[in-house]
């Protein structure tokens, strides 16, 4: 995905909360930090000089702990929050320069959103919630219901059309949220901690639904999360946010294998690396020994079982065209999965 075209480009985006953001902006540019701004000037630095290119038809994850500004960032993409300064370019248009009418059209047709706390309309049934976006677009009721019924079915809620959100579990409510967002047929999907309020098992379920749908829909998805496992699992690109600044961006493998600083390294050390690293990243030059042929994009964890079962404990790695480009042995796989700090601990002993 790294070389595909950019769909959303954020340039020099700043957001300062407080009475006089413009004066403070200059101070921030002159190097005043978030803490100083808070203590001395009583303003909150929400976002500081954000520059991000989000790939078209890919899943861009923005990860950060609470207070890092990730929810503020995603709300700038459809301008639910006005920036202090900056640009958000989508399909050659700057969202931050749109007038009210153009902005409404943009929100209706081109970017839909899924919320952490679902934000369903409690007085409407599942069906009525799902057609909400279409209703706003001005689509006729019959057609809207037909379209909505398809998406209700796709998220696995067929049979619940006449239920009210209050009668559904959290996971089911978020399926309604997802169906509502998908029904408008927007090609950008903004997901603000969409699965964070769900139980772990249901969260995995929802991630699978999203990934399955994405395989055929190829939407540009911006996904906010505070959970690194989730970020690595679903992200094509990940940006890590701290104190309103992007501190690293890259593919999941880049984040795990080359953490930019101790903060990120600390995050990534407890991660199951076998679920992130691909064979082509750790393979060695091809040899003439036999072994099953595995795709270079296969994850280490998935390959481990197959390689263990193969007689020579190795596998041949192929590229998209099916040519062998390298090999991995069982030892390579185990080393890739090991926690990075184990080596340093051995030295300490």
């Amino acid at each position, binding site marked *: 995905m790294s070389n595909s075209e950019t769909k959303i480009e954020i340039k020099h985006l700043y957001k300062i909360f407080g009475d006089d953001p413009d004066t403070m902006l200059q101070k921030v540019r002159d190097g005043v930090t978030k803490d100083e701004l808070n203590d001395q000037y009583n303003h909150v630095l929400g976002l500081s000089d954000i520059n991000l290119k989000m790939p078209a038809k890919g899943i861009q994850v923005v990860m950060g702990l609470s207070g890092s500004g990730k929810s503020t960032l995603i709300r700038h993409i*459809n301008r*639910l929050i006005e920036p202090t300064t900056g640009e958000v370019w989508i399909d050659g248009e700057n969202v931050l320069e749109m007038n009210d009418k153009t*902005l*409404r*059209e*943009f*929100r*209706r*047709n081109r970017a*839909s*959103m899924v*919320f952490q*706390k679902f*934000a*369903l*309309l*409690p*007085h409407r049934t599942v069906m009525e919630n799902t057609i*909400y*976006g279409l*209703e*706003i*677009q001005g689509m006729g009721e019959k057609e809207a219901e037909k379209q909505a019924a398809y998406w209700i079915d796709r998220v696995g809620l067929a049979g619940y059309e006449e*239920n*009210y959100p*209050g*009668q559904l*579990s*959290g996971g089911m409510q978020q399926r309604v949220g997802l169906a*509502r967002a998908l029904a*408008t047929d927007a090609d950008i999907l*903004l997901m603000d901690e969409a699965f964070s309020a769900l139980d772990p098992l249901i969260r995995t379920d929802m991630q699978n639904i999203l990934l399955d749908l994405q395989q055929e829909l190829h939407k540009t998805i911006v996904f906010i999360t505070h959970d690194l496992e989730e970020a690595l699992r679903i992200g094509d690109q990940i940006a890590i946010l701290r104190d309103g600044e992007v501190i690293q961006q890259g593919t999941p493998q880049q984040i795990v294998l080359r953490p930019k600083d101790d903060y990120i390294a600390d995050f990534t050390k407890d991660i199951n690396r076998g679920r992130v690293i691909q064979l082509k990243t750790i393979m060695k030059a091809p040899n003439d020994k036999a072994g099953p042929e595995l795709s270079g994009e296969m994850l280490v964890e998935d390959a481990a079982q197959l390689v263990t079962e193969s007689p020579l404990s190795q596998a041949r790695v192929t590229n998209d065209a099916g040519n062998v480009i390298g090999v991995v042995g069982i030892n390579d796989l185990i080393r890739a999965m090991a926690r990075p700090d184990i080596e340093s601990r051995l030295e300490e002993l």
Partner: protein
Amino acid sequence: MDWLTEFPELGRRDMRDFRKGIDQGFKDFTRTYGEDIESFFEPLLQFLIWLEKLLLATPWPLFIAIVCVLAWFASRSLKIVIGSAISLFLIGFLGMWEDTMSTVSIIVVCTMLCIGLGLPIGILMSRSDRAQAIVTPILDVMQTIPSFVYLIPVVMLLGIGKVPGLIAVVIYAIPPMIRLTNLGIRLVDKEVLEAADAFGASPWQKLVQVQIPLALPNIFAGVNQTIMMSLAMVVIASMIGVTGLGQPVLKAISNQYLAMGLLNGLAIVALAIIFDRISQSYGKRLQSYRGGQGE
């Protein structure tokens, strides 16, 4: 040290001129605009008279049946339906049917007016903090000022009759409608509103599809309060010529007719309970979606 014990009052003559000035000013205003204002309210009067005649012309079993059907659809409770039927029957049996119909007609018109005026004002208040800052003290005055005080200018302006009575009742009964509409809309979940924004809803779409529906339980509590307060005002309004159950009560006070006062008073209570139960249970049914297992 006189100034410490004697309050620095306005001189007697100045005071008299001051009062006279206000009285004269209002009298002039009445002379100039009284007729215009009266003709402005003429359609309202005609409607009120028409409704009263209609109710009086309705055969009593039909009226009771209509109330029962309304009660059933609003509450789905047999207890409320039977209770309403029995109390209405007793009211008629004790000779108060005609007065009751007059009272019902003025309550209906007053409630319609309060909703028609109160809803938009409440919505306006909820959308603008400045509007709220202006309207709230006015509502405070309307709710605390003794009703007799505003009866004076109303009577000066429009004389004695149904319309001034109606206006007095509306002034007294409209504040809860406005307040609860405002409150209801302001209490709508911010996250749901954000979702509406995110899907590109226009302000009007947000109001009609999200804010008003979600505020309905509160708005309905306002309607209920409005009805209750206008019933409470019926006796005072009868002092300026509103017909209905209030007039016999007034007569009973001045002549010490205990039974007459008690019966008519109880009829007002019965009406209040019927209206209250019907509108309250309807308001509750509006929230049925909040039931279920919750989050």
